[in-house]
């Protein structure tokens, strides 16, 4: 037996997602083959996905070994920690009246906290810091305006690359350049409806 762990996880992912889909699809009327209801096509698609997942699973038992990159205990720990912290932060934020629970902010706060916690081990920084930065942009854009949002997003994503930290001047220049460029394209030329400066 030569287990192909990449294929086995892929198969689990395909089958798992399809199983969830089939479970959710119970709410939809299947109809008949002649008059298909909203649930008919999803049913076909998810069953096909389960079959394909099964084939991947079967061959994954033999065509390995193809191991995933090794994860350090810290990386596993902070990944789980990030998920827990993110869900907790999101649920807490949803209960705080005002900004944290307005609109999709609770989702954003949860994702941001989760990504930040998961980015603690160096191996995860390339993955989670840009994700955190992207989420931060969503959180900051409406209350703080596009300029502030750009600056903090650039700084947050720059943490993923050690060289940025050694050259703060270059980073400042990048922030200024991107702010000016985005103002020219998105505000001046395309005139998208976003606040430019913080909303007091």
């Amino acid at each position: 037996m030569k287990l192909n762990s990449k294929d086995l996880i892929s198969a689990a992912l395909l089958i798992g997602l399809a199983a969830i889909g089939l479970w959710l699809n119970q709410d939809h009327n299947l109809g008949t083959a002649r008059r298909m209801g909203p649930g008919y096509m999803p049913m076909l698609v998810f069953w096909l996905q389960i079959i394909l997942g099964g084939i991947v699973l079967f061959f994954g038992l033999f065509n390995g070994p193809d191991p995933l990159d090794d994860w350090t205990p810290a990386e596993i720990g902070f990944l789980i920690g990030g998920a827990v912290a993110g869900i907790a932060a999101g649920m807490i934020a949803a209960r705080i009246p005002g900004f944290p629970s307005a609109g999709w902010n609770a989702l954003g706060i949860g994702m941001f906290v989760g990504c930040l916690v998961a980015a603690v081990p160096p191996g995860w920084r390339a993955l989670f810091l840009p994700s955190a930065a992207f989420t931060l942009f969503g959180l900051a854009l409406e209350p703080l305006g596009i300029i502030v949002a750009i600056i903090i997003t650039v700084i947050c994503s720059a943490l993923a690359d050690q060289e940025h930290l050694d050259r703060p001047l270059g980073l400042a220049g990048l922030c200024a350049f991107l702010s000016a460029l985005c103002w020219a394209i998105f505000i001046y030329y395309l005139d998208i409806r976003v606040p430019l400066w913080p909303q007091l």
Partner: protein
Amino acid sequence: MELIANLAHGFGVALTLNNLLFCLIGCIIGTAIGVLPGIGPVATISLLLPITFGQPATTAIIMLAGIYYGAQYGGSTTAILLNLPGEVSSVVTTLEGYKMARRGRAGAALTIAAVGSFFAGCVSTVLVAASGPLLTSVALSFGPADYFSLMLLGLIISAVLAQGSVVKSIGMVVFGVALGLVGTDVQTGQQRFTFGIPELSDGIGFVSIAMGMFGIAEIILNLEKPEARTVMSGKVGSLMMTREEVRRSIPAVLRGTAVGSLLGILPGGGAALASFGSYMMERKVSKGRHEFGTGAIEGVAGPEAANNAASQTSFIPLLTLGIPANAVMALMVGALIIQGIQPGPRMVEAQPDLFWGLIASMWVGNLMLLVINLPMIGIWVKLLAVPYRHMYPAILIFCAIGVYSLSNNVFDVYQTVFFGLFGYLCSKLRLEPAPMLIGFVLGPMMEEHLRRAMLLSRGDVMVFVQRPISATMLAIGAIALIAMLMPNIRKGKDKALQE
């Protein structure tokens, strides 16, 4: 001649000041991202989709198309000078092109890459123009069952030709179709898989998926591996080719154009596949085949002509049948739908400006690219001095603003992050994102046609094998699948894609 009248109309559209300007912008951006490794046409086009919404549909598509074929020109520059493929489609150009540069013939390699591309671009422009109306009239006789089978064939071939395991790629196609089903059911109005989220009732944002899986996931993967930048050592040298080089290049360009045009039309094909195909062919049949490995000019001329031809002919299935042949074309479908145009055989009739304008703009764009690339090659090479650490925050910001401005809703921003993480996971598991994107675009259309076909046939599945067009499509799909199960053919494909 109707064709000439139509083309004249197209040039009338393409030569308006606004369209010329956006064609030029598209070509310049395309060349730039072609030169720069780490950002490809799929990411760029999804990045710029939101910016094009303010423009008329024709202008938007002209610009986005310019990015795609412009990238084929730019990709060759770094491949030849630095042994660094800017795009997947110029990987093979590094093999002979860089060797030529080492021999001091960089200038000649760049010239034949640009001129060969230009020639291929002209031929494929005519090909698109001629085959468009022809295929359209055929497509109008298609029934729902035929359409369903055609789309199924497209999905199968795009999965079969994707890198890596065929079964996993088909799995991703199917998952893409499933994602496409999220939202309001068109016929009953019932909400499917929306979890009560109003933002999902129109379906998952197409731009979010494309930007997440191609833009953000790519940034993460690039950041993970240490930056490797080579500095150009040699000089470009004279751009003039010797008579001997010209003589050897002409047949290679002709063959490359033919191979590229064919592989571009194929569902699942496109520029990358075409350049591989042409390289394989040149290595077998060209007169200079014994020189391969030491800098044979045929190995530059053929693939470069092929990838440009393919990037243009891959518009044929999109413009005539409404079926995207690859991920870039899937983005074009997205752009058209957001502009309120349903791609399909009726487009030639209903949107003559768009159809003929786009074709004419391809020729204009190729001319521009020739000028942009050859004399200004030094400027493009300087672009490489921009380190990736300055590029990725800019890409992130552009993605973020772009995706937000789609509907002024931060939900789209968070959704994009989600797909970025999912895309990263997929690439670690060697699950291909491109087939998923095509499945996502085709999924809802397939459901429509399936329902209609079954209604017409009163629930009889045999309709798919009784109609000759549909049966042919299914047969080709089945053959493609069976062929991939044969061990030696599969090994041949893996070898071709890995080289």
